[in-house]
């Protein structure tokens, strides 16, 4: 009597192999999608960002962002725009839109003022 092939003797392992392969292909597809569509795109302000991160990453002056936050004068707080919006009774989308408008304006000014 001949012994069954390895994959017939290890059906669970074969199942794990198939699921892991499918998972790997899904991750690879998502990686390809991110590289082709997102990595080159212009970054946008999001509600997880902090005011200092916006200043650093988008090159906007602190003085432009600070008045939008509803916080006392002083150093910019280490808090997300989402939490700062909640403290002001605004929706995160509203505050993000205001900050994005300032970023766009600063961006426009730097382009106009460029060589």
């Amino acid at each position, binding site marked *: 009597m*001949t012994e069954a092939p390895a994959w017939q003797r290890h059906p669970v392992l074969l199942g794990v192999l198939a699921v892991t392969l499918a998972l790997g292909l899904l*991750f690879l597809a998502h990686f390809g999608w991110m590289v082709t569509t997102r990595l080159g795109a212009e970054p946008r302000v999001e509600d997880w960002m902090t005011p200092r*991160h916006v200043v650093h990453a988008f090159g906007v002056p602190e003085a432009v962002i600070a008045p939008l936050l509803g916080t006392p004068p002083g150093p910019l707080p280490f808090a997300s725009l*989402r939490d700062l919006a909640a403290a002001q009774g605004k929706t995160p989308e509203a505050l993000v839109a205001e900050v994005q408008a300032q970023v766009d304006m600063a961006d426009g000014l730097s382009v106009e003022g460029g060589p």
Partner: protein
Amino acid sequence: MIEHLIHEAYALIPRHGAAVLFTAALLSCAGIPIPTSAMMMAAGAFIAAGDMHFLPVFALTLLGAMIGDQIGYFMGRTGGQPLWDKFHARPKLAPTMDRARAELDRRAVIAVIISRFPLSALGPWINIAAGATQIAWNRFSLGVLLGDAIWIMTYLGAGAFFASHVKDVGATMTSLMGALAAFAAVWLIARFLWGRYRRSPA
């Protein structure tokens, strides 16, 4: 889905500070799938912006990762030991298992370092395997200390460098690392099955 998960994980960092990185590193190293690498990139961006300080972030993340690694190692050591003993009792398997253990032990440090970065998704499984095969604790701990330190510094540095695109880069890296780890696991399983197939009588 990956991006949504990363988005929500990023929002936790300003709310809870470095403590959230400690918790994420501990849980992910103990085997719970959390996008800790991407979260470290966000922390790197926050450090670059002046919101966080490098040293507490690095130290707390390293501590969390080391504790999580030890949980996995001792889970393997206690849970895997009866399984090991059961198979080791078979005279035909014992010499092969002893050779495999000696080989693993000899390469333990480098295997553990590689499983932190670039194959960080395989890390928890390597921890359990290291415990189950009784790799010496001091060699395992040296490997995770070096590997975790490289892993954390690489991602904090990448976050500082890619600050303006940190979420997109984080999601891209998470997918790439996930794909690499999955294909590495596929290769290991396929190699095992192929080996058994070649040894089986025609």
